[in-house]
């Protein structure tokens, strides 16, 4: 029974349920002066959260019953295989990219992130790895800053100076 409880969908449903309870509590802080009646800012979210609690419990119970009946396999052990390492690396790379963009700037940071991403996805050709990131970054900078007037992040300090060479 314990293995059934640790089934992914059940865990997610319980997380969703708990999250919905927390958000329901948050709706009590919205504040509303009921002068003329009618639905306030919290009524619709509250309705949705109650439905979310109900449906997520429904999913959990449904999956639990299917596991008990043998229609679905029970929870398998979590393993840190090569795929998961690549997944977490990709997530880490994206987080780092977005976080550093304000500091280093789009022009300087993007080629290196692209190179790292290409290696992560298994690209082997060094020609493509070291040409496409720079070419694409340049193309995007020209298109979005000169034509579409989108002010891509320039970074700070020396990175700002480098970015100013182009935009």
């Amino acid at each position: 029974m314990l293995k059934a409880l640790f089934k992914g969908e059940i865990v997610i449903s319980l997380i969703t349920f708990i999250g919905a309870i927390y958000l329901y509590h948050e709706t009590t802080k919205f504040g509303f002066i009921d002068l003329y009646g009618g639905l306030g800012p919290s009524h619709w979210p509250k309705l949705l959260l109650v439905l979310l609690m109900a449906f997520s419990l429904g999913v959990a119970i449904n999956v639990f019953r299917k596991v008990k009946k043998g229609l679905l396999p029970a929870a398998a052990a979590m393993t840190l295989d090569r795929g998961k390492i690549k997944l977490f690396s990709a997530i880490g790379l994206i987080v780092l990219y977005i976080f550093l963009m304000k500091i280093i700037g789009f022009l300087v940071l993007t080629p290196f992130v692209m190179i790292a991403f290409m290696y992560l996805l298994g690209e082997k050709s060094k020609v493509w790895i070291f040409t496409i990131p720079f070419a694409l970054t340049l193309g995007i900078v020209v298109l979005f800053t000169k034509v579409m007037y989108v002010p891509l992040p320039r970074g700070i300090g020396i990175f700002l100076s480098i970015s100013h060479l182009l935009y």
Partner: protein
Amino acid sequence: MEIWLGAFQNVFNPTGLFLIAAGVMMGVTLGAIPGLNSTMGTALLIPFTFAMQPTNGLVLLSAVYCGGTFGGSISAILFNVPGAPEASVTGFDGYPMAKAGKAAQALGIAIMCSCIGGLFSVFVMNLVSPQLAKIGLSFSQPEYFALGVAALTLIASLGGDNMLKAFVAGIIGLLVATIGIDPMTSNERFTFGGKALIGGVNFIPAIIGAFAVSEILATAEAGGISSDIQMLKVSTTLPRLKELIQLKWTIIRSAVIGTLIGILPGVGATTAAFVGYSEAVRWSRHPEKFGTGIPEGIAAPETANNAATGGAMVPLLTLGIPGSATTAVIIGGFLVHGLQPGPMLFLNQPKLMYSIFISMYTANFFMLFAGLIVAKLFSNFRKVRYSILGPCIFIFATVGAFGIRNDLTDVWVMFTFGLLGYVMKKYKYPIAPLIIGLVLGELTEISLRRGLRMANDDLADFLFRPIGGTILLVSVISLIYSIYSSVRKKPSILESTAAPAGIDIKGSD
């Protein structure tokens, strides 16, 4: 007759035809690139139109509008990244169809149906603009709410065996749509005291993240091996007459829906695409096949969203009220020439009005060629290895998300939805309901609240209105039928879209 001849002369000259062709090409290309859209394109062109003759300037803007509405479907079909919000529904069936090696067919259907939808709405606009404008004005909050509900019932129709999970996803989407400042009371909702979420969650980065970034993460986990090897050879094949005849009811219904929805101020091609798709599912003999890659799943949203372009021009030209975001920008095109769109413009400048109609007819024809060219160009990218293509898509997605409000918050939203999309795919939660809830959430909630205010909190008023009540009744019956069908254990139709085919996502734990 004299006016029509003058209008033909205005449009069918080298300058006019060049501007239409250039406008359509620009619109299709902008629409195909995630993060760019026809609204941006028309906004950029407004200053340039100042130096042109009024007719030429407005002809150019209309052409960009027509092309841009279609363009988003190219990247939605080829890369599962909708280039524009109105194309997000096209990807539900377009991408699975492309993965099955039928990208040429999918693109061809999208191009042809967009052309037909656009031509239909311009024809209707031409004939009955003032009458259509009256219908648009008769729509009030209860009718908008009914439209929102009609589109939301799509969640149940698509749910199948995963109906509970579909509802969970849809409700999460509706909840995310409440984040930010409440439009009616200005209360902050779910901002957690910070400034980042005060502006709410824009659905464009959410869509880009849920589809594109989640796929990149899943492919990274699979070792960089994409399931799209069948797409190495891609061209575009326009559907034959026989295929179009098979789709005739879907096309006609979606064209009418798109035109009518386009007329409604504030509701544009995106809602038209969702409602068009929803109705196609509702009236289909095989609703369980939607989401697996069928022609109707592309024909419906593409016809509807392009039909909305002509519809959106109706209130603009007859009343001076924009029917969509892009037509709101096009008002600027009128104003730079000292023109005020509205009923007086029809009386004072009839040749200009008819020139716009003729240019939109022409633009929809040109879209056939522009669509083929741009689709061919983009489809060449499909031959590129995912280890190169994936990072390129990611960077474009990032810039596209950033460019909406020039705010890194939107990029974080894209990443968050990318993670959410990955988890949902892994545990077989359908993503489409999440997007449906996110796109339609605000419209549904605000129209409900305003409608209740108008009716002194009497919900029965919603049901007794002829248009709104009918739409609600049909929607509720459809919802009950979908739930009943699911309880009788009809096959799921979203299982194939809940996880990318061919990618070995190990286990569901």
